[in-house]
């Protein structure tokens, strides 16, 4: 449905609007378009194979002039990939496979019939939802940032311009002074989405007022939290929205040089942002004399090597300079002395992507969304033991319950909810009694966790909280840069203690010692990695103390996770002797007796791998 741009360099705001009009006019709104999600999650479901299969089938049936196929960015409902939408009807199909292609073309594209099997059905109510916006997972979201991922091909600047892209840039450059932009962003209440939650407008203002030239703007796409992919999906799915925010910010700050620091492990994000920069330069939306305004900005892409610490602003800047990515004390802020010792403004991908929205719609509109202290929407990466894993964008202040049950569809396998960890590996664990907590920067901090960049990991009754704390400490031990003593040596010792506890070697004094070391980590660490690393321990001790006590005093793991503290046994009355577990056991610890007789488990041989329990559908393998 796209018209190939014949534009080249645009040198005025009017030129941009003319291009937008011609792109819209050249597009037949009634032409069928199959928009297939090609986000990270759907790649695992072979979405590229699906795109190829559709293209091939359309070619074979010579439907090219009637049907378009667009590969879009991430739609967020990763649990149900591969996803596609057929426009103009807006028919939403999920769990689509290459084998379905012929049927989709024959039934839906050519005859307008809905294929029931591919429509989302609510697992509880069994109700079918033909349109994406009706699906409970989407209905309860407010997808201001992610919504456009549905509508555009991220590698096409024409698509972005057609849906209104770069209009905010035009407005900023030609209708607003840098000070007015900063005031607008300040009044919007936008706070940094990378974790710190610092007011974005104030950061811009201090960089603008700082002495020294050149000034730098930096986009932090070094997302490293396990299970989090918000920034990745924005950068892959709508890179121009991030760039547009950066150009507006650079103009407001007075910077002509920018960097996008993106993880090398995000190849698609690297490719799409690199392409977007080239396209924007070719269209006069980046580079020299943007839209003929006299303002220039050069943006370069720098790839990070994968160290978690390089998401920290000073470490990121050191890495950009080609030095080892280690943080330094921020007693002098990076807005004054940052990259190469010059005033530098670093914002997260999601923060930058919010800027065009604010400029287009005004701070008054924006500040109505969210809570008193946290404005706008926030993207969360909802993972773990929920039914609907994926990317969720909700207004600040939405409760955890709404996110986990309303959007996430509740806990998998009707297990009981135990905890949700927010904010990445150094976030805290929040218990069931706090599910009605409205999620914003301040509320999460109050309960000992944090917003972080928006990770949200849900745990159920089968998760051992001591083991979870150990798991995240292990991650942090590996990712600590090792420069400062409390983080390097403190986390190591805390991990030793936690490991001992999970192995039945806990000592009575261990909990107090963990709390003491945690206090030191918070007080004495050089950067926020160490400063927040104690959250998993402190919150698990606070909210799940009984589990620690069970491990230390009774040498018992109530969730049945810690291998040294558990044993598996066969529940004779439930076991029909089918022998599935006998085959699954890697150690020949289970012996088949006879049909309809329970199997025998040899505790001496058992290595507690849990394979028997996993494979038994009858619940005949118990754990104690």
């Amino acid at each position, binding site marked *: 449905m796209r018209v190939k741009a014949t534009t080249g360099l645009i040198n005025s705001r009017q030129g941009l609007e003319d291009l937008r009009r011609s792109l819209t006019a050249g597009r037949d709104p009634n032409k069928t378009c199959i928009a297939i999600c090609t986000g990270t999650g759907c790649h695992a479901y072979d979405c590229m194979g699906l795109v190829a299969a559709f293209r091939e089938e359309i070619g074979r049936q010579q439907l090219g002039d009637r049907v378009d196929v667009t590969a879009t960015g991430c739609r967020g409902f990763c649990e149900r990939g591969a996803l596609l939408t057929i426009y103009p009807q807006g028919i939403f199909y999920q769990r689509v496979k290459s084998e379905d292609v012929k049927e989709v073309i024959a039934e839906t594209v050519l005859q307008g019939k809905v294929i029931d099997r591919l429509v989302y059905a609510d697992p509880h109510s069994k109700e079918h939802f033909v349109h994406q916006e009706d699906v409970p997972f989407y209905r309860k979201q407010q997808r201001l940032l992610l919504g456009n991922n549905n509508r555009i091909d991220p590698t096409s600047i024409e698509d972005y311009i057609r849906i209104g892209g770069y209009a905010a840039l035009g407005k900023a450059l030609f209708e607003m002074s840098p000070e007015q932009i900063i005031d607008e962003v300040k009044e919007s209440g936008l706070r940094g989405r990378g974790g710190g939650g610092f007011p974005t407008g104030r950061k811009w203002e201090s960089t603008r007022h700082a002495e020294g030239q050149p000034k730098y703007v930096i986009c932090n796409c070094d997302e490293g939290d396990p299970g989090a992919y918000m920034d990745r999906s924005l950068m892959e799915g709508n890179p121009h929205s991030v760039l547009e925010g950066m150009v507006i910010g650079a103009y407001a700050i007075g910077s002509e040089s920018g960097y996008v620091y993106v993880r090398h492990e995000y190849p698609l994000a690297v490719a799409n942002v690199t392409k977007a920069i080239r396209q924007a330069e070719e269209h006069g939306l980046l580079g020299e004399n943007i839209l003929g305004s006299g303002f220039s900005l050069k943006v370069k892409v720098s790839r990070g090597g994968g160290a978690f610490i390089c998401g920290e602003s000073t470490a990121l800047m050191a890495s950009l300079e080609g030095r080892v990515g280690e943080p330094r004390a921020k007693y002098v802020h990076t807005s004054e002395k940052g990259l190469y010792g010059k005033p530098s403004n670093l914002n997260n991908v999601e923060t930058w992507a919010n800027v065009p929205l604010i400029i287009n719609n005004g701070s008054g509109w924006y500040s109505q969304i969210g809570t008193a202290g946290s404005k706008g929407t926030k993207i969360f990466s909802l993972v773990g033991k929920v039914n609907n894993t994926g990317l969720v964008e909700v207004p600040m202040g939405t409760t955890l319950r709404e996110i986990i049950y309303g959007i996430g569809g509740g806990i998998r396998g009707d297990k009981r909810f135990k905890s949700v960890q927010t904010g990445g590996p150094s976030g805290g664990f929040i218990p069931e009694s706090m599910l009605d907590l409205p999620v914003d920067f301040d509320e999460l901090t109050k309960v000992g966790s944090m917003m972080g960049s928006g990770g949200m990991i849900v745990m159920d009754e089968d998760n051992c909280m001591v083991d979870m704390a150990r798991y995240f400490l292990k991650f942090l031990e590996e*990712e600590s840069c090792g420069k400062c003593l409390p983080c390097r040596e*403190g986390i190591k010792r805390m991990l030793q*203690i936690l490991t001992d506890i999970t192995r039945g070697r806990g000592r009575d004094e261990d909990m107090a010692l963990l709390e003491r070391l945690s206090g030191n980590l918070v007080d004495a660490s050089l950067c926020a990695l160490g400063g927040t690393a104690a959250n998993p321990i402190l919150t698990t001790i606070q909210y799940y103390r009984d589990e620690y006590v069970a491990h230390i005093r009774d040498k018992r793991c109530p969730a049945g996770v810690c291998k040294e503290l558990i044993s598996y046994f066969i529940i004779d009355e439930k076991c029909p002797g089918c022998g599935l577990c006998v085959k699954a056991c890697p150690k020949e610890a289970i012996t088949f007796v006879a049909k309809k007789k329970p199997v025998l488990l040899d505790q001496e041989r058992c290595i507690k791998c849990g394979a028997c329990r996993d494979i038994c559908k009858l619940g005949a393998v118990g754990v104690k």
Partner: protein
Amino acid sequence: MVNLTIDGRQIKAREGMTLLQAAREHGIDIPTLCHNDALEPYGACRVCLVEITYKNGRNRLVTSCLYPVEEGLSVSTNSERVTANRKILVELLLARCSGEKVIQDLARKLGVESPPFRPEYIERNACILCAQCVRACQEVVGVSAISLANRGVSREVAPPFLETATACIGCGSCVYICPTQCIKMEDVGDTRFIHNWSVEFKLKKCKVCGNHFAPEAQLEYITAKANLPPGFFDTCTTCR
């Protein structure tokens, strides 16, 4: 001049000084391990933590080696919070470097007897990772022959690729600056060995006394850097 209070004493300090410099200038002792006046402040050991209170009453812990003096600031170098944290830091160090005298002395001063960890986890590392050697090599000597390698608990001072420090000039600055003497250097006849970096250097023989007085590589480096005439180092400093 900036007016501030350290441990209750009114102090005037020059703009741009750090809290550590201001305190030491007035005879107030703050322990340090990674600090060296010859090097840029680093802030890794955290032992020099002090508690500061701003004019608005807000307080926090900062590293005095890095924090600049500020008008009206109130600083405590030995508040309860400072001492408690410093003790833990020393316990952590003692658990890593249980055999090092520098750490044992500091522990004794703070009343730390033994680290609160299981005995089997106590280590006898010689290096406290203060990075003074690496920084002296880079900032003072200017050759960066060694660096910090690996991350987190695996962090160590090492030559490139853990092989030979090919850029080393054998000056021994790393050896002299090391607070735990964990870098081993010896001069045997006309050869200098720095064992940690797997390097050896031929020593220059003094034309007059015949003593081997400095590595030839170091003398060449200085000659080139300071643009000295050839033959400048033919005699040792004693005989010159």
